[in-house]
């Protein structure tokens, strides 16, 4: 018998919870590894369908009927054409869904995105494919599609030769008002990342070089002239996109080094004039700790001031359970019907740290108000839960997914 209780709460086979209650769990027919694409469709007949992009092949995307959160029904699960492509990201507007495709190496296909008609969720119909493949491109990593007209995305392009192979994905704006014929209308990249730029290539992060690439590219109806972009090694970027054909840099908050890089999401809270900036943990066992959720004062968008971070449990407690532990995706207040929106409560996933909610009404002192850490899924290669993405619906239900094996967890948040 061990002589102390140290470590007793860190057993990865045990759920931890505060103000979140598990309502149901779906293993997605044995393919429970989900990427960072989750979207909710309010379908005909009052059904709520949750669409999820898989983290890797063989599956493309899976839809689950979550109308009754205690009685989940898988509606459809689709295949990728081969094992060297992943979808990872998707978004849903009405009955149209955009799905990203990123290949494991350059010069492969499909690399781009698909638009699907999902008016009949059981049988998604392909509307069109946007090709972003090329000799320097791996295609699309993440899409942002919330208005039915424009897809903002992190993508490579056939004509974009990066100065460094890791800098291949930049910000592209695609007009999809004619869904059968998507068309690029604008793009922006961090100067120095493209061959031929007037500035020299950028200095690499000495220890954690994940590339100067776009990740999440968010645009909200409150500020249609702004794009909020996580630029991985490049930090947080605000762009003026009043003229989509010529995005202009407004502001750039670059905090790595000394930090460990990988800026993932830049989520604006327009009322309190804050940015919530999340990193992504990309290494196991806490090697790239700290990976944080930052609260940034954005009252003056040209002078962003970080004022606090959301408090996380001690890294020692979780990092040794296996897999990653640190920030990743946030619920992004999607401006679409069905999505929950809050300017005071931030919900995010933290891999082995589970899903966590913070109250930022006092932005100088964010407070953790809820969390749920599921037990390690049986077949997970990580040895612990690795919650990857989260979507909160307007009923206050929290949908969160495991990166490798656990599938979908539906939680009731009581805060």
């Amino acid at each position, binding site marked *: *018998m*061990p*002589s*102390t*209780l*140290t*470590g*007793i*709460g*860190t057993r990865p086979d*045990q*759920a*931890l*919870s*505060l*103000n979140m209650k598990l309502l149901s769990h779906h293993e997605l027919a044995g393919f429970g590894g989900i990427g960072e694409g989750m979207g909710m469709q309010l379908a005909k007949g009052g059904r709520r369908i949750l669409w999820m992009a898989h983290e890797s092949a063989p599956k493309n995307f899976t839809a689950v009927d979550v109308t009754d959160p205690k009685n989940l029904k898988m509606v459809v699960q689709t295949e990728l054409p081969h094992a060297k492509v992943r979808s990872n990201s998707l978004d849903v507007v009405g009955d149209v869904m955009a799905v990203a495709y990123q290949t494991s190496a350059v010069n492969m296909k499909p690399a781009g995105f698909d638009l699907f008609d999902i008016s009949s969720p059981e049988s998604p119909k392909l509307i069109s494919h946007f090709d972003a493949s090329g000799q320097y491109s791996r295609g699309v990593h993440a899409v942002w599609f919330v208005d039915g007209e424009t897809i903002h995305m992190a993508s490579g392009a056939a004509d974009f030769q990066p100065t460094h192979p890791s800098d291949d994905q930049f910000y592209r704006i695609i007009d999809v008002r004619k869904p059968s014929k998507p068309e690029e209308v604008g793009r922006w990249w961090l100067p120095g990342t493209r061959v031929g730029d007037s500035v020299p290539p950028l200095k690499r992060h000495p220890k954690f070089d994940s590339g100067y690439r776009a990740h999440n590219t968010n645009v909200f109806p409150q500020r249609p002239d702004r794009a909020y972009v996580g630029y991985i090694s490049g930090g947080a970027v605000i762009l003026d996109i009043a003229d989509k054909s010529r995005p202009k840099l407004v502001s750039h908050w670059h905090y790595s080094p000394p930090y460990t890089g990988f800026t993932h999401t830049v989520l604006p809270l327009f009322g309190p004039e804050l940015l919530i900036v999340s990193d992504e943990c990309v290494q196991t066992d806490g090697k790239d700790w700290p990976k944080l959720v930052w609260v940034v004062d954005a009252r003056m968008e040209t002078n962003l001031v970080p004022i606090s971070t959301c408090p996380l*449990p*001690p890294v020692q*407690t*979780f990092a040794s359970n296996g897999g990653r532990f640190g920030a990743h995706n946030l619920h992004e207040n999607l401006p679409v019907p069905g999505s929950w*929106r*809050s*300017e*005071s*409560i931030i919900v995010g996933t933290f891999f082995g740290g589970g899903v966590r909610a913070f*109250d930022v009404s006092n932005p100088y002192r964010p407070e953790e*108000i*809820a969390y749920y850490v599921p037990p390690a899924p049986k077949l997970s290669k990580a040895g612990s839960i690795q919650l990857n993405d989260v979507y909160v619906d307007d009923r*206050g239900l929290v949908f969160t997914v495991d990166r490798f094996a656990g599938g979908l967890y539906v939680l009731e948040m*009581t*805060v």
Partner: protein
Amino acid sequence: MPERPRDVLAGKLPVSLITGFLGSGKTTLLKRLLRDPGMNRAAVIINEFGEVGIDHELVANSSESMTLLSNGCLCCSVRTDLQETMRELFIKRRAGEVIDFDRVFIETTGLADPVPVLHTLQTDGMLGAQYRLDCVVTLVDAVNGLRNLDDAPEAAKQAAVADRIVITKSDIAPPAAVAELEARLQQMNPYAARMIAVNGEVDVAFLRDVGPRSTRDAKGVERWLSPAAGSRPAEGAYLGERARGGAHDASIRSFCLWFDKPFTWDSFSAAVQVLTSLRGSDLLRVKGLVNVEGERGPVVVQGAQHVFHPPVSLEAWASDDRRSRIVFITRNLERESVESLFAAVGTLAAQSS
């Protein structure tokens, strides 16, 4: 779309305080509780490990001051003081060093006045932010209970502040004594539900989920304030005195005041301030739902002696009955005095507006 206000109660860990005079059977009850499957994920703070006699085969894991039992219950002994123990427990839970317990049971010593523990929960900033009082459970034994209520002010106070009363040792007391004890408890505190336990056998459910636990559950809060099932409306002191010819503890009274008109928060808190500053030590327990002008739902107030918990606004009323209702359990303080104080403050406040 205005955001739904946060449920300020939901985030806090409920605390059940288990009190009872010397010999009332707390140790027997705890022995049972620590073996109960319903105690999975509960933390129990006890005075002495030795006394409850935890068998080795029940222990899953242990350290100097904490033991994880095989039913998933975390048992801790108080070392220096309760405040420190509760802080340490929360910090260890937060760091994942102990199970993520979702409620706490605290055993108080037999001579203890439970009110200071209620105050600790309220006045310690960290404890107040992380824990909430769920209920005070008082054990009264059927053999000596009546005498203790008469002779020991601590015993009377324990019964007066209770939200739940467990009558123990009924199997070795004459039925008439049990009935007399019940009548006395009914007279002192009709707002506490009672049960009779034999050999410490108590359904865990009786000891938990009693007090306000969600700002969205007005019905639950109303139940908490209602006289316990089967009891008469709260005019106990008067009936009790007549029935027993004015025994010692008749100085403890319980009554519920109802108010038809909404209060302004200023006038309500002024009345409470006068009451606590003049007679705080005689307000053994106050709990109520107050209709405050400008609030969508009722405001939950509760206090013990001089200390009141911060008021909590509920999202909505449970029914059309929006009268304020406040339960008072007092010592040497008549219903009429409290009533007339509220009336006077109400009149003054109305004249000022």
